[in-house]
């Protein structure tokens, strides 16, 4: 560990630390443009010059290019270095246009800050400035190339870090241009990070264009709740609306970056009737009512049903986007009042998968995204990281950049922003491939590993009887055997019920072989981990609940941040079931069909208005602070308010969990927010933490081998010439957030059904053909995309908001070949 002296202060830093980072550890921020911790150093901008007084280097050098070494004495304030930096900034400013007043970056601009701090005050160069033509870069990013200072951060991020190949540096010298080959949308779903990473205003946020200045914003550390990763954000609000999102640094979770779905998918939370669609007023039977009236009406109706038909006639339905607070309150309400629920899952299989994924994960095998980046072998099973949890794909790329092999086993044509070996296999075969791979990697000497290994071999022996693994699997097994820190990324969307548990035990087996293997599950939503923790076994899923409604057992429903019209595969049945109910209440912030039909609708507040805790898929509890108080957005002409009001208009919205407490008559008895009272004591780790719990991973008990994989209920049989209809997620266009965030709409691609090349030949279909698939509920018309990376005998269809996939009538559907017709 080298020790060096910077500005007369001594510090000891880890081997390989750059001098610029060593100084930052001391709180000395050396000016920089091109250097970024995530991107590394290139020494392009010459801004981080410091004077090396003693040691192996002498004189003015770039602190980002030199690693800290013993005996170094560095001065950042030396006159020579200061003068050097002043000249550099003067040169960088040579071509910068007179743009600050019209530039959105103004006020949060690194170039502005460094110009001031560098002491460059007067332009001396009288010559003309070079100018460029700007490009159209899609709906999210505005390109203004004249402002560029040629630091290369954008192309380094875009090409090297994120792994996309359509934006980069062109020309040389003074003509250097960062852009695309021709105008068009950026292909990367991480393009929004260009806004954060650009030290000046070349790339600005188009969704927030000209709407704000940094100093006008209310900012708060927030969370992205669109997938299970729980990336950290900074939410920026203005005029009671969320205006933009920035990534917030969290070394263990998302690092410095954020995906575009998370960054631009916030407008659902804004409620200006003219611009956005968020419902802001409580409604009783479709008529606008006061908040208190709506709550008391709901309370009375539910009490009546409970009194007449017993408490079990009322059920509480949640979803994958509930916060931990809502989930805990639903649990508490159901326990106290005897109501049925809480129902977190629509699909019974998904419930099983989530529960096993959550309960099989323990503190020893769970890994964070940071650990994925440092893995030396990555095995993706039944997961499509880029579509299900985009930032995990970014983490995989970082591992791949460090030469970690990436293997994907999935029916989908999984594509990652890095080289990977793909095995297109049916969901039922994923375990066989995984098992065979692990078995081969364990090698012969693993026989001595103990009973777990024996069980595993015995189980696999039966499974692999008729299984002929391809050659390439042997190659992968050798790489896995050679690795020391492999990570298995296991999905829950298309896998069998047992796969998450199986994957967990595979990880444990690898650990028996003296590896530090890790498991990283991808769950269906931000609240999935909490739902898995708090789900009680006797509680039915929504699929069961529909039956109860039909046979009259359940007469009243509460939907807490839940929209079955989005998730339930049989719309006709759902409509008739809901019409049979005496009463149902919707607590939501989406203008969903459920909210529209509800007997009473109460507009719950969003994550931006009332803080919320989420457990991400590795069990890390994180708290999103509220950023604004909510209420009706201030329209132009209303600010500053001319009339005094103690209450923000429309600002009395409660979060779903508080509304629920009030409806259940528990606002008196309900504990004030405190996790140890909320979360049942059966889940360890919360009682020691105060509220809000943030950034910590409550200790997950060591669970050990479960070997539950023998108890497979999954029907593996599939008639010949039938296709399994696999419903999958896309990064844009399938989630509820995407459905109601108009800001994401331009990025949503039309739905495509992916089939394998062989199947396409068999069915006589070609790429871009439009087909009609006959389902139980009607015909589904969709364009075909043929890929040789898709597994055979599956039809892969996104749960696209522009597609009426709710005709499929069941969560698992098979379609025979004659039902697929080209039109």
């Amino acid at each position, binding site marked *: 560990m080298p020790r060096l002296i910077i500005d007369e202060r001594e510090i000891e830093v880890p081997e390989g630390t750059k001098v610029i980072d060593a100084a930052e550890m001391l709180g000395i921020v050396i000016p920089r443009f091109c250097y970024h911790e995530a991107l590394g150093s290139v020494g392009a901008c010459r801004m981080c010059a410091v004077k090396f007084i003693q040691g192996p280097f002498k004189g003015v050098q770039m602190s980002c290019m030199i690693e800290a070494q013993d005996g170094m004495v560095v001065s950042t304030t030396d006159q020579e270095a200061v003068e050097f930096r002043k000249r550099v900034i*003067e040169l960088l*400013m040579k071509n*910068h*246009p*007179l*743009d*600050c*007043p019209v530039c959105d970056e*103004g*006020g949060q601009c690194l*170039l*502005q*800050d460094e*110009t*001031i701090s560098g*002491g*460059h*005050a*007067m*332009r001396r160069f009288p010559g003309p400035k070079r100018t460029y033509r700007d490009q159209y870069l899609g709906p999210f990013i505005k390109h203004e190339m004249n402002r560029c200072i040629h630091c290369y951060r954008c192309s380094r991020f875009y090409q090297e870090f994120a792994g996309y190949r359509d934006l980069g540096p062109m020309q040389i010298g003074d003509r250097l241009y960062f852009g695309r080959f021709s105008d068009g949308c950026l292909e990367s779903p991480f393009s929004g990070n260009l806004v954060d990473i650009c030290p000046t205003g070349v790339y600005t946020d188009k969704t927030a264009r000209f709407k704000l*200045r940094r*100093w006008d914003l209310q900012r708060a550390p927030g969370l992205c709740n669109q997938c299970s990763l729980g990336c950290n954000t900074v939410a920026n609000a203005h005029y009671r609306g969320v205006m933009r999102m920035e990534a917030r640094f969290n070394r263990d979770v998302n690092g410095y970056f954020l995906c575009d779905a998370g960054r631009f998918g916030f407008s659902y939370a804004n409620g200006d009737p003219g611009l956005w669609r968020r419902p802001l007023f409580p409604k009783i039977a479709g008529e606008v009512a006061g908040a208190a009236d709506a709550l008391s009406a709901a309370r009375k109706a539910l009490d009546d049903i409970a009194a007449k038909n017993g408490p079990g006639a009322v059920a509480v339905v949640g979803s994958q986007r509930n916060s931990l607070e809502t989930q805990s309150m639903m649990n508490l309400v159901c326990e106290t009042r005897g109501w049925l629920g809480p129902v977190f899952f629509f699909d019974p299989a998904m419930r099983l998968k989530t529960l096993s994924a959550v309960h099989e994960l323990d503190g020893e095998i769970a890994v964070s995204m940071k650990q994925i980046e440092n893995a030396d072998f990555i095995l993706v099973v039944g997961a499509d990281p880029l579509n299900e949890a985009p930032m995990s794909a970014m983490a995989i790329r970082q591992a791949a950049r460090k030469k970690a092999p990436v293997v994907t086993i999935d029916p989908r044509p999984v594509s990652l922003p890095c080289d990977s070996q793909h095995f297109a296999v049916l969901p039922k075969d994923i375990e066989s491939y995984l098992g065979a791979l692990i078995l081969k990697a364990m090698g012969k000497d693993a026989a001595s590993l103990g009973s777990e290994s024996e069980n595993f071999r015995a189980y696999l022996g039966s499974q692999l009887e008729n299984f002929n693994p391809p050659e390439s699997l042997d190659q992968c097994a050798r790489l896995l055997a050679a690795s020391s820190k492999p990570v298995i990324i296991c999905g829950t969307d298309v896998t069998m019920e047992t796969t998450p548990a199986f994957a967990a035990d595979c990880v444990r087996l690898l650990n028996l072989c003296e590896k530090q293997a890790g498991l990283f599950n991808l769950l269906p939503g931000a609240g999935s981990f909490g739902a898995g923790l708090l789900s009680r076994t006797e509680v039915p899923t929504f699929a069961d609940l529909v039956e109860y409604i039909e046979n009259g057992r359940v007469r009243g429903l509460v939907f807490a941040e839940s929209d079955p019209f989005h998730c339930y595969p049989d719309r006709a049945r759902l409509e008739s079931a809901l019409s049979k109910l005496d009463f149902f209440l919707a607590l939501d912030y989406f203008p969903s069909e459920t909210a529209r039909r509800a007997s009473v609708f109460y507009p719950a507040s969003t994550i931006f208005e009332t803080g919320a805790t989420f457990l991400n898929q590795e069990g890390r509890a994180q708290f999103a602070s509220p950023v604004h108080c909510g209420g009706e957005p201030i329209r132009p002409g209303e600010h500053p308010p001319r009339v005094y009001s103690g209450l923000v208009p429309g600002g009395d919205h409660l979060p779903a969990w508080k509304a629920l407490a009030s409806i259940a008559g528990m606002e008196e008895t309900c504990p004030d927010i405190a996790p140890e009272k909320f979360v049942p004591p059966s889940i360890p780790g919360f009682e020691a933490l105060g509220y809000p719990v943030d950034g910590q991973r409550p200790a997950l008990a060591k669970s050990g081998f479960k070997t539950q994989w023998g108890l497979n209920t999954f029907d593996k049989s599939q008639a010949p010439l039938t296709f399994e209809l696999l419903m999958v997620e896309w990064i844009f266009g399938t989630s509820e957030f995407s459905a109601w965030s108009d800001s994401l709409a331009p990025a949503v691609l039309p739905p495509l059904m992916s089939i394998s090349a062989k199947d396409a030949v068999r069915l006589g279909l070609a790429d871009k053909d439009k087909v009609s698939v006959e389902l139980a509920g009607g015909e589904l018309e969709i364009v075909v995309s043929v890929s040789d990376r898709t597994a055979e005998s599956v039809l892969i269809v996104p749960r696209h908001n522009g597609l009426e996939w709710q005709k499929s009538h069941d969560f698992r559907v098979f379609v025979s070949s004659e039902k697929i017709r080209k039109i």
Partner: protein
Amino acid sequence: MSESKTVTLNMGPHHPATHGVLRVVLELDGETIVNATPVIGYLHRGIEKICESRTYQQILPLTDRLDYSAASANNLGYCVAVEKLLGIEVPKRAQYLRVIMAEFARIMGHHLWLGTHALDIGAMTVIFYAFRDREMIMAMNEEIAGYRLTPSFIRIGGVAYEATDDFIAKVRKFVAWFPKALEGYHQLLTDNKIWTTRTMNIGKISAEEAINHGLTGPSLRGSGVAYDVRKAFPYSSYGDFDFKIPIGENGDVYDRYLVRMEEFKQSIAIIAQAIENLPSGPVMTDNPLVASPSQPEVQTDISALIRRFMVNAKGTPVPSGELYSAVEGAKGELGFYLVGDGSEQPYRLKIRSSCFYLASALPRLLVGHMVADAIAIIGSLDVVLGEIDR
């Protein structure tokens, strides 16, 4: 059987002789004051708290509104404090212009005191002449700063604008003319028997007591203590000027009157020296963190534009540290206790208001006097509620 009972008299807050919204609760035994309690806070605007959420530049107009009768002196006090914390040097020309503005502010403040104080006691004439001359200074404020009462002319790092020729001509004219006007005030009051009878040996306070009560400015000097911040801790080039500190002997209303009358004379002498020896050069520091560049620069030079942007939008980051810095305001020692935390906004700004100490001495001064004398005593202390209440 006779019972002795005191009468409580509420003087103010809307009383023509309390000059603002000062309220004094008087307890009277007959016509003699046995107890007096000043009540303040009717003009409280929370300036100190507002300062914590404003940039250093934005605070400046607020300081105008402390002792609004002598606004430039407050500007100067605040700017000197911030500049000390920033560690920047103000150009000499700006320092001289500041002195001119601050001394004009003192004269303006004394004009207001003289006119209203005499009016309270019954001498109606003086206020017309005092205000006639005060108007001339206001016109000069307007000429150089664009505003009459609250010029906000002195800015952090210098002054807002260059002095115009017209301004300098006006100052010269005023300097030449004012001693004559001052002679007029003396003619009207100084030897007048009614005036001396109403003021001599009224509201007497000894030097020791005055110090103990924290009195500063003319009220302290009236008791014979030669303390003036301009001499004791010279700032803004006050050391360059030749002027004298007037002191009294008796510490009564009349001596305080005489001290202020002499201060008129000294102030005008300072202005005369400053305007004649006005150095050439810039009127604003060239420190890029402080100075907002000129309009032509901003419209052609991106570096200047960025400076404009940062200075106005973000403000000037001031190093962390704390200091107390005082100037001699029209009423006494006006101190600014400033705590910087490295950001663009002060962590705390405490204003040492000289008037607050003057008002707190009222119970001591009033007791034993007649109600009618209370008017003379309050007037002689020259309190301004804008500064007390803040």
